[in-house]
């Protein structure tokens, strides 16, 4: 019984972790890209530098959901909470 509760809670936590972090990163990526498009439309000659800045920004933003995904996979595959219950 405790095992089932822990397993279910872990999966729910994984879903929340992944969904919320993807939501935030999606909003962030959208903002960065839209501003880049706007900037390029105003000053097409700046496209090269804007693209570099956009890629740096997206790299920062994408790191967060990927860190979340890493922690989530750790929860699923090497469940430390389940180990507490089973005492192993």
């Amino acid at each position, binding site marked *: 019984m405790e095992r089932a509760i822990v397993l279910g809670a872990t999966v729910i936590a994984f879903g929340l972790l992944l969904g919320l972090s993807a939501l935030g990163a999606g909003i962030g990526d959208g903002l960065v890209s839209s501003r880049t498009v706007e900037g390029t439309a105003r000053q097409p000659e700046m496209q090269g530098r804007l693209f*570099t800045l956009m*890629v*740096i920004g*997206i*790299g*920062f933003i*994408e*790191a967060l959901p*990927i*860190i979340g*995904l*890493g922690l989530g*996979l750790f929860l699923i*595959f*090497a469940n430390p909470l389940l180990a507490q219950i089973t005492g192993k």
Partner: protein
Amino acid sequence: MIALPRLQIEVTHPTINIAGLDFNVDTIRNTLIVCGLLLVLGAILRSQLRVGVPTQLQNATEAVVEYINNLTEETLQGRNVTLGPLAITLITFLLIANWLGLVPGLKSPTNDWNTTLGLALMSFVLVQYYSIRSRRLGGYLKHLLLVPPYFPLTVIDELAKPITLSFRLYFNIFVGELLLTLIIVLIPTWISWLPGALWTLFSLFIGAVQAFIFTVLTVSYVAIATEVEEGHG
């Protein structure tokens, strides 16, 4: 009830113990592979150099070197610091290291926190060194202790830089490879090539972006540290 296959996914590194220290054998091997590849690449480039009409390879290399050099110069404008060679070394090493994990049977050396933390500590020492050099010891201490209540915050800020730098790179590469394994294990074989190919393409992008970010951040941390403040500099 669906029976999930018992998943055995290898996330730990095989280690050997020398003089009480654990060494990750696969990481060391893969780092040496990357170094070997870079040496071979350098030797090929060296043999292709022409003073007259440059070859295509030489043109491409010069464009990349010039781009990164210009980026570094722009970031470090007006400071007595030269980081171009370091930036080019970092970005080529990290690019090949990040992409090595996409070759079947090989792993990235950067999927180990030790590698990325080592590189981040190098950048940390570099930042502190240039900070002391540009501000002198008195100025450096003044910068740390300028407003006493903020002293712990400044120290945490300085210490958090290498940690976030190393975690960003490590998790991106580690999760990329783990997901590639998971796709192969969890998705039926007849369709697993599709998400596999898509994720591999995305990993190529991520690897390049993370190598670039690591380099740019190292350079800009030095740029921030060597900034000479107007009033009390």
